[in-house]
């Protein structure tokens, strides 16, 4: 009996050892003997889910009998992919919260230009590149090549409830003066003017950068993006920081700096705060809480009186970026599938199913879209160009150590706008001096067609 027990234990031990010692390094994609190519696609599974991606993959497979798309999603997809990138066994295509710039500089990504310059799916008279909204492919260009393509179009706007505005006779403001007057009226009504996602001070960055854009021509805005010496201590940048601080101190809902994004957005949905600055994901994020009769609409960051910036430029651009890995087994097929994800037909289904915008030009034309989205489309239609920050993508350390703390201190009125600017400038100087941090050549003002 005891022998039997011992043998069983030994067998179990052997099994356990085998389990520890042998971690299968097998690939998920393996070209079968049938000649069918399997493209592995890993997708960040966030608020938008992966059902749309799956439906496009099924259509692609039907159109391309020689290709199978093995598409999977995970909220922590980046953690699963990272060790595989290191083992040079990445999926073929991925959309993940990865440091794209680090990957580009390390030569881990495959340029999409060959695919971008080939005819688009569904619009064969144009190249894939030409079908994209101008400016949306510019975020991850390196040495003249494009390394990522976005499947979503983002925009930074101020959201409000039309019904509440009608009830009190409020109008969406166009200028900073109108904005502050409106905020005063709201305060007089006992309603906090602005909800704010204070536990993430970074939510203020897009608003602050939009205010700065209103004040200066794009040459200076992009000089700041290129970390040109002195850009942050520019008096206009200090003024933008001062407007941001004024907004926080006077008009943020009391206690907002201790609220998470969901808490503060909930305050807005419940009408205790009248407005909130956010991206297009707001509706999806809050859809289960939005009450009947709530009329979500938006306006862009107001123009600042006396500013020299374009009053109709809109903070926004590509989002949910996909990249093909240099070590992918089937990079060309993966890039082709990405092109298909961004065909006009896929873009339309994206807009309808996920109630958000696609970076493919014309994708909202001739299809039924929600009232909220119509409001965003109206803002976009009036915009002359889109611009968005790349500092926080490029300089992760600057973003995490300098920017976050400085913003929290600025918004909580612990530092002056001047001190805020000096801290950012010092952080930028440290970044400039650090030879280990990759700095792309100054990009100046990107051209738009």
């Amino acid at each position, binding site marked *: 009996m005891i022998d039997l027990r011992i043998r069983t*234990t030994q067998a*179990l*031990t052997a099994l356990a050892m085998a389990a520890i010692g042998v971690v299968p390094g097998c690939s998920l994609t393996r070209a079968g003997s049938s000649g069918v190519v399997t493209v592995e696609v890993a997708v960040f599974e966030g608020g938008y889910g992966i059902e749309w991606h799956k439906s496009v993959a099924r259509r692609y497979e039907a159109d391309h009998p020689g290709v199978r798309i093995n598409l999977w999603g995970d909220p922590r997809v980046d953690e699963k992919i990272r060790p595989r*990138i290191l083992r040079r066994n990445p999926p073929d295509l991925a959309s993940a919260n990865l440091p794209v710039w*680090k990957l580009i500089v390390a030569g881990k990504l495959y340029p999409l230009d060959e695919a971008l310059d080939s005819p688009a799916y569904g619009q064969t008279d144009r190249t894939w590149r030409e079908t994209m909204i101008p400016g949306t492919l510019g975020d991850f260009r390196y040495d003249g090549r494009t390394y990522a393509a976005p499947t979503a179009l983002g925009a930074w706007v101020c959201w409000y409830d039309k019904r509440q505005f009608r009830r009190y006779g409020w109008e969406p403001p166009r200028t900073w003066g109108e904005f502050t007057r409106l905020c005063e009226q709201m305060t007089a009504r006992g309603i906090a003017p602005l909800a704010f996602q*204070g536990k993430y001070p970074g939510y203020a960055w897009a608003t602050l950068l939009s205010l700065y854009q209103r004040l200066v021509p794009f040459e200076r805005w992009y000089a700041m993006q290129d970390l040109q010496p002195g850009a942050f201590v520019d008096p206009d940048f200090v003024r933008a920081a001062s407007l941001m601080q004024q907004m926080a101190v006077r008009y943020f809902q009391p206690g907002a700096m*201790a609220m998470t994004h969901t808490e503060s957005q909930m305050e807005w949905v419940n009408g205790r705060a009248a407005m909130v600055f956010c991206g297009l994901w707001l509706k999806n994020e809050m859809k289960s809480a939005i009450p009947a009769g709530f009329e979500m609409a938006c306006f862009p960051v107001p123009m600042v009186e006396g500013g020299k910036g374009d009053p109709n430029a809109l903070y926004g651009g590509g989002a949910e970026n996909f990249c093909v890995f240099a070590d992918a087994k089937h990079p060309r097929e993966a890039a082709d599938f990405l092109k298909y994800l961004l065909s006009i037909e896929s873009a339309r289904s994206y807009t309808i199913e996920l109630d958000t915008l696609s970076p493919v030009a014309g994708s909202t034309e001739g299809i039924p879209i929600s009232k909220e989205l119509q409001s965003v489309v109206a803002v976009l239609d009036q915009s002359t160009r889109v611009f968005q920050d790349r500092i926080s993508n490029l300089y992760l350390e600057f973003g995490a*150590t300098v920017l976050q703390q400085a913003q*929290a201190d600025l918004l909580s009125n612990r530092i002056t706008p001047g001190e805020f600017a000096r801290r950012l400038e010092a952080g930028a100087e440290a970044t400039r001096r650090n030879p280990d941090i990759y700095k792309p050549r100054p990009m100046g003002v990107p051209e738009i067609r």
Partner: protein
Amino acid sequence: MRRATRKPGGDRDRNQALFVVSFLGPPVALYATFVLWPALNAFRYSLYRWDGLSEPAWVGLGNFRAIVATGSEFLPAIRNNLFLTFVPGALTLSLALFFAYTVHQRIPGARLFRIAFFFPNVISSVAVALLWILIYSTTDVGLLNGLLRLLGRTEPIAFTESGNLLWAIVPMSVWSATGFFMVLFLAAMENIPETYYEAARLDGASSAAQFRHITLPLMWDVLTTGVVFLIVGGLKFFDAIFVMENGRPSKTTHTLATLLYSKVFQEYNIGYGTAISVMLFLLVLAATLVSLRLMRRERLEY
């Protein structure tokens, strides 16, 4: 004859050894694979600049130099760790001793108190943090701000805003840790023979004198263990800060553990992050040795 000289039970000894090895083998192998090997690797990685995506580059002690350079977040993080070690630590120890001694005096309902005080300890630290987020909330659900509103305060206090967060963690930390230390100290107190107290009482010793001259010296070893627990816990403080800062602490609120997480997993600065982990290891080791040395006394036995 040879059979007779053979040591009786030899086979059984061998079998027993095999039996023991087969039981110890898997846990030792698991421990070596998932704890020892990565820990040793951390020392190696701390000497490289590595983003986890490209090939590591040797920088020698460069990461350690950067850690102690001016303006680095390392020193503020240590300051936060020290705050979270000593402020809640001192309160926890005092309260735990007080409650343990009170319960030990067999006051009515002592059992109930013992269970009630221990209860927060069975809740995971993440759940505790989530619970206290609700207590501190500035929205309608906030218990504390609700009370302040009843007392006539019009604007809520942003307890969990990064500038206030460390202080907000103090009551939470004391609330969740006191029960454990109370039970630890109570067990030590209950092991002290009653006869000492009887003798002291006959000599007319007051309650305070009994505590000072009998209880405290005879439970000194356990108290030392408690202090070491608190110091180690304070130095590797992570959960509450991470949860209450939504995974993105700032320089004001970083502890060493959240800082190393942020460096490794958010900034992809793996060499620098592991260098922080090496420093954390050395700090915990030093603090433990120092506290053991400072609290060393001649062992009293009963």
